[in-house]
């Protein structure tokens, strides 16, 4: 019996010694990163979830892309698209573009890809091209996109991965056989593991240094953390709790934490059709009762910046002249008294705050509830499963709720969130906010191609929204990543993409 136990132990030790654990040492050409959820599709025309888009960005090439700050830059286009008319864009392609099978990438491929979105009902990304009227191939390298109406935000939609013209005609594509034009190509797809290999035909100047990228789907946060500690994964972005990040920063010499401001704005939404939250005085009092920095420090581990508008500070459209409403409890109480909401016993009135079952969101809701209690507003926090929560918010069965806007690149997001014609199910104006002056400005902001003019329009829009307070903008969350210290050249992108992995290598 003792001999058997010893043999088993020896086996385990031998297994460990023979390399069950990946090495942290230099010179590795394979990087393993963890994603917190499945990649639902490898068809760029269908990718609307974050993980599918991250893979798309590594495997496919697109007309334009975004730099680390989230600003548009040319992708396979020779330069950013040019407006030749109010409703027509001209785009020229770079020289020497090729798919991974060596075939040339031409304007016909670009046209076929976008044509399939134009005609293909049921393709998830068709919705982004509602204003596209036609695509014309002028020559092998030049295309013209004609819109139904002027739409300055259209350029930021030209990020769909380009497919070979033949594949673009098919509704279902086999991702492993599909020739692609990004820095990597798909090598294998398993239920929990996706392997990408360097695309030898990649024509960009930023050819990848790592030979293989292994994307592991690790859904449990504690498991992701354990895998980071053992070296089974080298990189996790955003999907680790902030408490864990703090522990890693203090204790683990093999790992480092990097962070940068992200394109994620968290807000507190109001239902403007509700008699209580429909009152501007109540909304203002709530805005003055919230101490954002306190919540950021305690619940978000300091990894966010207080917000007073939807747009992050790095956006060229951000209005820096807006004055933030900082916590002023006396002012909040006075506003409520003046509006006819006196204290009745322990509180003036009670509000319901619906949120999802995410632990951080529940903590935030409870923190806000405790802050509002100080001005006599009793808040009942109601966590609920996502499907039920979204249904209630879309149907207006809420008073307060909290959500965030993620990864938006153009200020036209204001139209989606606040225009009168964006009431659900047409858009995401879930607070049923309506302001004709804002509607006019939103239309103008969208139809104007002049950058300076747009900046001024969106500043005016931000001021109007700040005055009407359909949301209390809470904070812009930082992006953060825990990485193997040996990994060099990896930088965070504001929109969470892994584009900098092209430059990454192990030292």
């Amino acid at each position, binding site marked *: 019996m003792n001999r058997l136990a010893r043999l088993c132990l020896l086996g*385990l*030790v031998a*297994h*460990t010694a023979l390399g*069950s*654990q990946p090495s942290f040492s230099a010179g590795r050409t394979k990087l393993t990163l963890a994603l917190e959820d*499945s990649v*639902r*599709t490898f068809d760029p025309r269908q990718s*609307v*979830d974050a993980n599918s888009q991250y893979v798309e960005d590594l495997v496919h090439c697109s007309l334009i892309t975004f730099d680390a700050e989230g600003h548009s830059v040319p992708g396979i286009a020779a330069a950013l698209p040019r407006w030749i008319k109010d409703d027509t864009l001209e785009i020229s392609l770079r020289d020497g573009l090729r798919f991974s099978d060596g075939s040339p990438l031409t304007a016909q491929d670009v046209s076929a890809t976008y044509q399939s979105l134009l005609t293909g*009902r*049921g393709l*998830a990304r*068709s*919705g*982004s091209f*509602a204003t596209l009227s036609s695509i014309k191939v002028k020559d092998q390298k030049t295309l013209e996109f004609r819109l139904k109406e002027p739409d300055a935000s259209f350029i930021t939609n030209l990020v769909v991965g380009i497919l070979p013209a033949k594949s673009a005609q098919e509704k*279902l594509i086999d991702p492993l056989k599909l020739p692609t034009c990004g820095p990597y190509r798909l090598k294998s797809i*398993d*239920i*929990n*593991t996706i392997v990408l290999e360097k695309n030898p035909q990649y024509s960009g100047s930023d050819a990848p240094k790592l030979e293989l990228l292994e994307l*592991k*789907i*690790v*859904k*449990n946060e*504690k*498991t992701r953390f*354990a*895998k980071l*500690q*053992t070296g*089974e994964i080298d990189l996790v972005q955003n999907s680790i709790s902030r408490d864990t990040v703090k522990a890693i920063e203090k204790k683990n010499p093999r790992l480092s934490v990097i962070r940068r401001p992200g394109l994620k704005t968290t807000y507190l939404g109001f239902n403007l059709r509700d008699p209580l939250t429909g009152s501007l005085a109540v909304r203002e009092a709530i805005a003055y009762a919230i101490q954002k920095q306190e919540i950021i420090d305690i619940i978000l581990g300091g990894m966010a910046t207080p917000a007073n508008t939807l747009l992050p500070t790095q956006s060229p459209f951000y209005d820096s002249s807006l004055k933030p409403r900082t916590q002023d409890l006396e002012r909040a109480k006075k506003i409520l008294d003046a509006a006819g909401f006196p204290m009745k016993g322990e509180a003036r009135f009670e509000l319901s705050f619906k949120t999802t079952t995410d632990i951080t969101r529940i903590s935030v809701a409870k923190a806000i509830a405790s802050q509002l209690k100080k001005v006599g507003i009793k808040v009942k926090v109601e966590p609920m*499963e*996502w*499907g*039920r929560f*979204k*249904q*209630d918010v879309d149907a207006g069965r809420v008073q307060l709720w909290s959500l965030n806007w993620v990864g938006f690149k153009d200020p036209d997001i204001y139209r*989606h969130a606040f225009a009168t014609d964006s009431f659900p*199910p*047409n858009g*995401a104006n879930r607070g049923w906010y309506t302001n004709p002056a804002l509607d006019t400005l939103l239309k103008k902001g969208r139809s104007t191609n002049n950058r300076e003019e747009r900046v001024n329009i969106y500043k005016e829009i931000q001021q109007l929204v700040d005055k009407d307070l359909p949301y209390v903008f809470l904070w812009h969350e930082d992006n953060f990543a825990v990485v193997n210290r040996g990994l060099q050249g990896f930088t965070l992108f504001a929109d969470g993409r892994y584009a900098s992995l092209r430059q990454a290598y192990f030292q």
Partner: protein
Amino acid sequence: MLGFLLKRLAGLIPVCLGVLIIVAFMIHLVPGDPVDAILGDYASLEDKQALRSALGLDQPLLHQLGSYVGHVAQGDLGQSLIYQKPVTELLIERIPATVQLAICSLLVALAISIPLGVISAVKAGTAVDYVAMTFAVSGVAIPTFWLGPLLILLFAVHLGWLPVSERADWSSFVLPSLSMGTALAAALSRMTRNSMLDTMKEDFVRTARAKGCSEFSVIMNHTFRNASLPLVTVIGLQFGVLLTGAIVTERIFDWPGLGSLLIEGINTRDYPVVQGCVLLFSGSYLFVNLITDLTYSLVDPRIRLSS
């Protein structure tokens, strides 16, 4: 025997149909829209309606259900709304992982519980018995969501002996099997002990001793064999539980099995996937029960299934 088998197999059909109808109704009653999950937040209303129509989700529930049952009768479990793959293909991809884990967990449970239960019964009332039963009570009381991460911390993070998660070589089976098998081992060891104690009081055990059989032979050949009949029933039922109840373990250990597919299906309101998983779960449960009934006659030849 054959008549019994056919009768039981025929009995599976109405049960599966009942399960199918209840699950289909329930999943459709849960708030949430698969079209939202597929198209995202920025899709136009027209696109959403077009997709809803293409997927048949705009049809009355009874119509959807009727059509689904018709397809299932022809062996077609439908197409996943999210992955755009046949549900059968998704299930086939995941079945081996779940079955392998269930078998390994059962082996772990049996390897622990049978010796523990037998020794505990033989040494009833001694320190050995108390220690064994303390383990049994603890095993039942410790939840998998706590034990799993603890095993990872000890064997993967601190000792570095085993991988944290994923299904790869033999070493990847150790922690999830231990995690799932421990609770079952605890329950089975208590049952083995009780059954052994009851059987040890029987006359035939005393007779075996009187005939001069060795103590080992008395315990294993006479007592344990007769005490194992109730165990077979429990093991059969528990194997069904292992096949269908690995959701937490699969989540903790990134196990690409049916449990994680079911959770994903529920989260994304992928109705065909949820229906397919539940149908498979109930079918496998019924099948395991049938096998258990058949095993009775092997363990105890006095039982005749035809009766």
